């Protein structure tokens, strides 16, 4: 079956612009996670959704970052007023449910802020 998909695969933006990153989870997966992979910080958790609600936003680096999920499916991560330190690969993962179930990752969106 189809895996997790993310779009765009690459995004180059100018400092100060807003960007939206999209994630389509595996059909039927109720839990959705966003992570960020950068050279200096490794892989770090950003936010988690169970259905459409986000019980854990503890990893969002600043109030410029926000995310939403609609219909228990597609999620959008929005970064406002992008900064150069936002440059990273943003990964989305989904799992059958929250907890210890394995997470399936998408290919990521590589964001470059110039």
């Amino acid at each position: 079956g189809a895996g997790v998909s993310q779009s765009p695969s690459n995004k180059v933006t100018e400092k100060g612009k807003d960007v939206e990153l999209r994630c389509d989870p595996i059909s039927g997966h109720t839990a959705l996670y966003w992570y960020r992979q950068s050279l200096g910080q490794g892989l770090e958790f950003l936010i988690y959704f169970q259905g459409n609600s986000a019980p854990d936003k503890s990893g969002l680096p600043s109030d410029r970052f926000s995310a939403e999920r609609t219909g228990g499916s597609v999620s959008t991560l929005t970064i406002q007023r992008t900064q150069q330190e936002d440059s990273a690969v943003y990964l989305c993962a989904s799992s059958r449910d929250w907890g210890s179930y394995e997470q399936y990752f998408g290919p990521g969106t590589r964001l470059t802020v110039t």
Partner: protein
Amino acid sequence: AQSVTQLDSHVSVSEGTPVLLRCNYSSSYSPSLFWYVQHPNKGLQLLLKYTSAATLVKGINGFEAEFKKSETSFHLTKPSAHMSDAAEYFCVVSSSSGNTGKLIFGQGTTLQVKP
């Protein structure tokens, strides 16, 4: 709080020789542990997982890992390395804080396989 330490940032082996990637974890209760692999320009793929069943876990592509509670370790092994095993490997613990299941990643180990 949970944490993961991968003891080697880079491991180099010859094709056909055994692979050992070391991982230690810290957790206040029984953790769920995973190994993920990331090939260049590819997404993260689950190799194997431990969730309090058998302590020796078999994964894909001939990899296995053994959960040792007394040593707080979850080392990844493979009897014979293949060129296609060259990749970045991440040891991961699932955070049980609030039961969100968010993953906490180690810093990664780059496996190089020489012909």
